[in-house]
């Protein structure tokens, strides 16, 4: 359990570092952390971004971003008002999530766990759900001006 607490605080720090470090004048606020007991996450409209982890710990981080938030975040990152989610916006969000995941695991707490991550895989706006088979899922939420991001971690024993 203490490991999960370390993981959660490391993610919060990484989200803060990456977003405020990459995007000028950006503010992001962490919201509640909770455990998803039914181990199922729904996506109606928006993006699922999946980053796999392997090493001494194995599992995945999943980002869920609705369309308006994704557009806002990508626009802020590209410093231009993107009219719609296009390839540029998807690449921007893939890069951000890659940076957040990498930053989370490069903190001193994780170095000896030797965890490597796979590049982000993006799934777009349909009725899709993620099913975790054996393990609980931890949800973190973040808010910024004009949107929000949900993050889910499911780590195997």
């Amino acid at each position, binding site marked *: 359990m203490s490991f999960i607490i370390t993981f959660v605080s490391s993610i919060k720090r990484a989200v803060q570092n990456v977003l405020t470090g990459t995007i000028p004048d950006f503010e992001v606020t962490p919201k509640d952390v909770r455990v998803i007991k039914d181990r199922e996450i729904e996506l109606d409209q928006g993006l699922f971004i999946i980053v796999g982890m392997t090493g001494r710990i194995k599992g995945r981080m999943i980002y869920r971003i609705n369309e308006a938030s994704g557009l806002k975040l990508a626009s802020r990152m590209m410093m231009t008002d993107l009219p719609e989610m296009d390839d540029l916006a*998807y690449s921007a969000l893939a890069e951000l999530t890659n940076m957040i995941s990498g930053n989370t695991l490069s903190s001193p707490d994780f170095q000896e766990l030797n965890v490597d*991550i796979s590049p982000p*895989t993006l799934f777009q706006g*349909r009725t899709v759900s993620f099913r975790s088979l054996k393990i609980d899922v931890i949800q973190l939420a973040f808010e910024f001006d004009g949107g929000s991001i949900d993050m889910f971690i499911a780590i195997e024993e």
Partner: protein
Amino acid sequence: MSSNLSLIPALHAALSEVFTSGGVSYTLAETTSITTRTLRLPGRVTVIIGLIGSLRGRLIFSFDEESWKALTEAMIGDEAPDSLRISMLNELTNMLAGSMIRHNTLSDDLDITPPTLLVGSDMLLTGLEPPVLMQLVTLGTGTMRVVIAASA
């Protein structure tokens, strides 16, 4: 030879190893090259396995309703509950990916992440960096799609 192309023979060897030992009959259908950044996958279950090492990317195994039925019925019968079928598919795709890693001749430092399983009726994979390869495999009256999207 592109890195994705070099994984096709490894996939064929993995299918032969895992499906044959599991008593699953299958037929290799065509291999297609995906040149768009978006790919629609018909539901119902899609499994994503990350690829790490000198090749980085992901392997995606996608099953339509018919292929998912054919595969799970061949392995655990037609009365098994959905939860058991999903669990079996998770294990099977993990075995296929592991077998691909062992059979690949390109690199000896490849590793895989655990499978991540998505359930849905219609899935849109996006942000692909072409060229990406897709192998179609006929299972019963359905089709399993294996997307190989990795780069050196």
